[in-house]
């Protein structure tokens, strides 16, 4: 080998086993905690993923519309006014700068469907959508065909998407109408065409085994169709809340990190809405929009993560201090060795680089292993945290008849924590601590007096 410099650096690592193991162990621990800080901390993609997994930023409802008992107000007035006011309010909130889009579902229950082949079908639940992304993003996936475009949703084209558990096929036309028990048939209201078949994403909080608004017999269609249908029907018929409701009002933030800040704003908007509702004499004052507890899952997870982050940060700082002290101590012990290099004519810079390079090589190996372990631990902790919260929140959600199915959340989290950029940050920071420690130590050690003394001159 022409240059002995690099070989000597390797000698430093290989032949000084105890020293190498000390530095390696400290660096391993340090990089492990630093990687955990990163995974739990500054880069919040994990929260984003959790939020996405839960399909929830804000949810208001479940606002079953119940007509006032003994009220002199006609149900038509009541429903019409209430629906219109809520929808207007949703549209106003949607215009807030933090909001990406809003969605809500006009839901009609106990509807029946009829097609030529199957004859009489009952138990469909019509589920309205306002946004082309909402369901596909969060709750369902298409098995066949396509979803409604935003244009079709807005204009109310009579297309429907049906569950893959039905026998309906793409291109089928069915008539939807309210069951007419008295006359033993259905009242035909609207003919729609099947353009897509969907199946549930099981991790959706809206996935329900028994009773769901997107259940096996759910029919998805434009909110506008349902809205128009409602307005038509209420002019002529008596309707009640068991047939019609406005559910799952959701606001999706552009940046989920606005969650906490926007909460205050939303509270204020809700209070304003409630005041307006209460001011209307014919609307019962106990009809209010309340925020469900589901949104607090993210907050809760974030709180726990912050605690973890503080703990990891403290451990990291302590480990870093131990590392710095160790490097200084080990290098100081080598001052005699350095003086040999110095007396042989090696510059202080080259001597510094010699030890920096040796420690950095140890550091690279330690950091890679530390980050790999950190990745594994962060995933396990994420799952633990979320499981706890999911169990807690599922209790809170019972009033909405919604059950969290967390079994597949784990699968999503498994893939969410590791991020190359975060790993790179952790590696760079750990190695930077090593480099700065070596540099600082060498500045203290490499002065002429110490080198001369250790060179054996005294």
């Amino acid at each position, binding site marked *: 080998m*022409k*240059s*002995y*410099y690099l070989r*000597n650096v390797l*000698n*430093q690592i290989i*032949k*000084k086993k105890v020293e190498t193991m000390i530095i390696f162990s400290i660096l391993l621990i340090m990089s492990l905690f630093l990687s955990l800080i990163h995974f739990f901390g500054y880069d919040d993609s994990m929260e984003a993923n959790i939020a996405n997994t839960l399909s929830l930023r804000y949810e208001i409802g479940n606002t079953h519309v119940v007509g006032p008992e003994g009220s002199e107000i006609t149900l038509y007035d009541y429903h019409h006014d209430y629906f219109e006011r809520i929808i207007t309010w949703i549209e106003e909130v949607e215009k807030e700068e933090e909001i990406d889009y809003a969605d809500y579902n006009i839901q009609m229950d106990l509807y029946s469907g009829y097609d030529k082949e199957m004859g009489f079908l009952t138990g469909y639940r019509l589920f309205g959508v306002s946004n082309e992304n909402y369901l596909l993003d969060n709750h369902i996936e298409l098995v066949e065909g396509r979803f409604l475009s935003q244009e079709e949703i807005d204009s109310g084209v009579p297309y429907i998407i049906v569950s893959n558990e039905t026998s309906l096929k793409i291109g089928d036309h069915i008539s939807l109408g309210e069951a007419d028990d008295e006359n033993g048939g259905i009242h035909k209201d609207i003919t729609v065409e099947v353009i897509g078949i969907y199946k549930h994403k099981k991790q959706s909080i809206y996935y329900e085994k028994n009773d769901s608004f997107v259940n096996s017999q759910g029919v998805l269609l434009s909110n506008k169709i349902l809205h128009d249908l409602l307005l038509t029907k209420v002019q002529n018929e008596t309707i009640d809340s068991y047939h019609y409701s406005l559910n799952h009002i959701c606001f999706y933030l552009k940046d989920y990190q606005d969650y906490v800040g926007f909460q205050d704003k939303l509270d204020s908007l809700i209070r304003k809405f409630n005041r307006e509702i209460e001011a209307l004499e014919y609307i019962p004052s106990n009809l209010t929009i309340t925020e469900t507890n589901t949104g607090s899952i993210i907050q809760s997870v974030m709180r726990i993560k912050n605690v973890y982050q503080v703990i990891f940060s403290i451990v990291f700082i302590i480990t870093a201090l131990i590392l710095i002290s160790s490097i200084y101590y080990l290098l100081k012990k080598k001052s*005699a*060795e350095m*003086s*040999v*290099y*110095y*007396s*042989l*004519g*090696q*510059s202080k810079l080259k001597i510094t680089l010699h030890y920096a390079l040796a420690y950095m090589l140890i550091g690279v190996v330690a950091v890679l292993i530390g980050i790999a372990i950190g990745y594994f631990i962060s995933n396990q902790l994420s799952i633990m945290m979320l499981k706890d919260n999911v169990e807690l929140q599922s209790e809170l959600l019972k009033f909405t008849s919604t059950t969290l199915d967390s079994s597949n959340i784990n699968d999503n989290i498994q893939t969410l924590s590791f991020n190359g950029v975060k790993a790179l940050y952790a590696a760079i920071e750990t190695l930077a601590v090593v480099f700065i420690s070596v540099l600082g130590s060498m500045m203290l050690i490499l002065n*002429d007096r110490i*080198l*001369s003394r250790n*060179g*054996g*001159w*005294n």
Partner: protein
Amino acid sequence: MEHVLEVKHLNYFYPDGDGKRIIFEDCNISFSCGRFYAILGDSGSGKTTFLSVIAGLDKRYEGEVIYEGKEIKEIGLDKYRRSGVSMVFQSYNLIPHLNAIENCLIAMDISSNVSFLDKKKVVELLAKYGIDEKKAKRKVNSLSGGEQQRVAIVRTILTESKVIIADEPTGNLDQTASQSIMDAFLQLAHEEKKCVIMVTHNQKLAEMADVQLMIDQKKMISKEERK
């Protein structure tokens, strides 16, 4: 005889409280190749300081240290140490976790003496100085003191520097080992035409040198010249 190393008007002092302790004051001395110099002096007289200055390890001096006609600070102290001067210490100053061959190769690499970066030649030279290949492949700290010092001498030879500075090189050795080291220095001076400058307390060893120098009244003076 042409001087390879000259010290001119050397002034050196240590800060001592508010004042200063003067070690050298207008000290002048010259060294030539092919000569073996021994410097004698009491403890604290400044022998170590003198060696530090002429070895390019201590730059806090006033005056001039001239190597082959050029002030060593102008040459660059790192470069001067790399190629102009090499040192042998009382405590050998070898890299303890390396073997004799590796110690030599490092020195050659640092001094950029590529012509010698040949392991075989290193082994041959070590053998010439009594370190056989088997010993040469052992960690240096497993060798005896005399053997370690001979490795250090071989290291200085391999760097091909003209000036060899030795600080009490026999201080840790028995009489036989000391004699072999002195023989090596004499050989380097007389046959290899090196300028060997040695500090010692031992009057007998000093008498083996060509020139005996003493530090007296903050100056370096020649005690006698044999040849």
